[in-house]
């Protein structure tokens, strides 16, 4: 596009409720051009609803929202011409084959046949589905459908790509492949807006992210900033023997403990001593590692707080 605006998405005090239940509660954030912006948060936090508001697929109760400097949802049609969408649940057209799905979807953007012909070859390659071109959707595996859905979102060569849990259901190879492709898109100057439950994905891809809970933003920053701000540098993750470990540190200071499922997390800026001690206790199975985004997530949205 000719005019180079820098803020691709601008959201100010956006609110949305369903039957008196506030789902998006006055959130504000901006997404800059060329960045990958992540939305994290537990199930039901309001991530998908936020994306639907941005796409003009859902009217907000209050607040201001613009995409490409165009006010939404008033300019929904114009704006969606320039966006690619990967929905949380695949909605490929079951009446068509892989290639036909790309053609039909492209026709919704009024893209000419000759442009589509050229682009669809690339997209099949992107999705790794060259030899499945004429397969009906129902005969594809879940992961293949997901890859096709991601490829489909690129059919209009979008400036902004909105991805709602893009790699859910993909095997590790496919996930790495998609991450590589998404990074390439960012190098081409595309802007990515993504939700995910994979902290590794957020950490690898996102330049900036927000953590949502119950419709509110509870933290914002780059993955590194969040890790530095919210958690200690080291973690000892005890998968079994947690009770003994708890017993052991009862009279020690400087450890923060969190429990998720049956795993205990011991946080510290220096876990050396703890590791040495745990190694002596046979029943304790543990992993010593640097803190990551998952720890931030657990701390911010953790439900089960020990100590």
């Amino acid at each position, binding site marked *: 596009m000719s005019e180079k605006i820098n803020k691709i998405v601008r959201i100010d005090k956006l609110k949305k409720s369903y039957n008196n239940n506030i789902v998006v509660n006055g959130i504000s954030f901006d997404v800059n051009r060329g960045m990958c912006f992540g939305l994290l948060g537990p199930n039901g936090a309001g991530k998908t609803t936020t994306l639907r508001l941005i796409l003009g*697929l*859902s009217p907000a109760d209050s607040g201001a929202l613009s995409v490409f400097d165009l006010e939404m949802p008033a300019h929904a049609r114009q704006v969606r*011409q320039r966006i690619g969408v990967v929905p949380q*649940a695949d*909605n490929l*057209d079951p009446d068509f084959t892989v290639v036909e799905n790309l053609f039909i*979807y492209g026709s919704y953007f009024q893209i000419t046949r000759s442009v589509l012909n050229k682009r669809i070859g690339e997209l099949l390659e992107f999705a790794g589905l060259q030899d499945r071109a004429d397969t009906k959707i129902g005969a594809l595996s879940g992961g293949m459908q997901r890859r096709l859905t991601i490829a489909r979102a690129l059919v209009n060569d979008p400036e902004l790509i909105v991805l709602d849990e893009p790699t859910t259901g993909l095997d590790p190879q496919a996930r790495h492949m998609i991450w590589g492709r998404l990074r390439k898109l960012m190098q081409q100057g595309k802007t990515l807006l993504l939700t995910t439950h994979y902290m590794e994905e957020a950490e690898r891809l996102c330049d900036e992210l927000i953590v949502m809970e119950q419709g509110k933003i509870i933290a914002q920053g780059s993955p590194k900033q969040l890790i530095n701000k919210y958690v200690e540098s080291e973690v000892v993750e005890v998968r079994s023997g947690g009770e003994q470990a708890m017993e052991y540190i009862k009279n020690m200071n400087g450890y923060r403990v969190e429990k998720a499922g049956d795993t205990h997390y011991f946080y510290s800026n220096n876990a050396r001593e703890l590791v040495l001690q745990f190694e002596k206790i046979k029943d304790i199975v543990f992993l010593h590692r640097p803190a990551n985004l998952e720890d931030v997530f657990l701390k911010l949205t953790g439900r089960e707080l020990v100590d």
Partner: protein
Amino acid sequence: MDLRLPLVRKSAFTIWRRNALVWRRLLGPSLVINFGEPFLYLLGLGFGLGAFIETMDDMPYLTFLASGIIAASAMNTASFEGMYSVYTRMIPQRTYESMMATPIEVDDILAGEMMWCATKSLISGSAILAVAALLGAVSGWQALWVIPVIFLMGLCFAGPAMVMTSFATGYDFFNYYMTLVVTPMFILSGVFFPVTSLPETAQVFIQLLPLTHAIDLVRPIVSGQQVNNIGLHIAVLLAYAVVGYYLAVILVRRRLII
């Protein structure tokens, strides 16, 4: 509620084309049905009943019946497509959801669907016209004028069908409309016998039904008689189409844009 008047744009044709592409696959079986059914009706009822009733309303019974069946088939086809198929794409298949992530809007989708319903009516109605002509029930080339009328009828019946779809909770829901609306029209609106043979109080009500007006257009065109009140009949059919489309757009917006 979003009451904005719908805009009909080029995108509507894109939706029409999508459906046409799916249909092309099933061309064989659907044409067998389109031609086979009227053959049965016209041969069975036309010749069977025709042996007792030679003429009705100053025309051979076969002609009377064939023109009624053309209209009834346009109604059935558009109603069926506007309910069962549109519902399938809207809810279980989530095809509209995928379309709405693109510049396509509800206005375009329903306009395209409506044109597709009318196209299917056109196909089935024309098949019957061809069969009727083969059986000698059509009086001349002027009968080709029913083709645009069939398309209009398709739009007319697609409108109310899509309104039903916009608040349907499942396929069973359509049984009400089929049993309470479509079947009574099929029996009472003059497909098999003239409306004038019914009690007068009933006739007032029957004049409100779109199938009655459709038949008042189709029958004289097929039999080569003078068409009366053309303007009124076309206006009634158009009104059902336009009001139905507008209501369906508002209701589907309310259902999908939440």
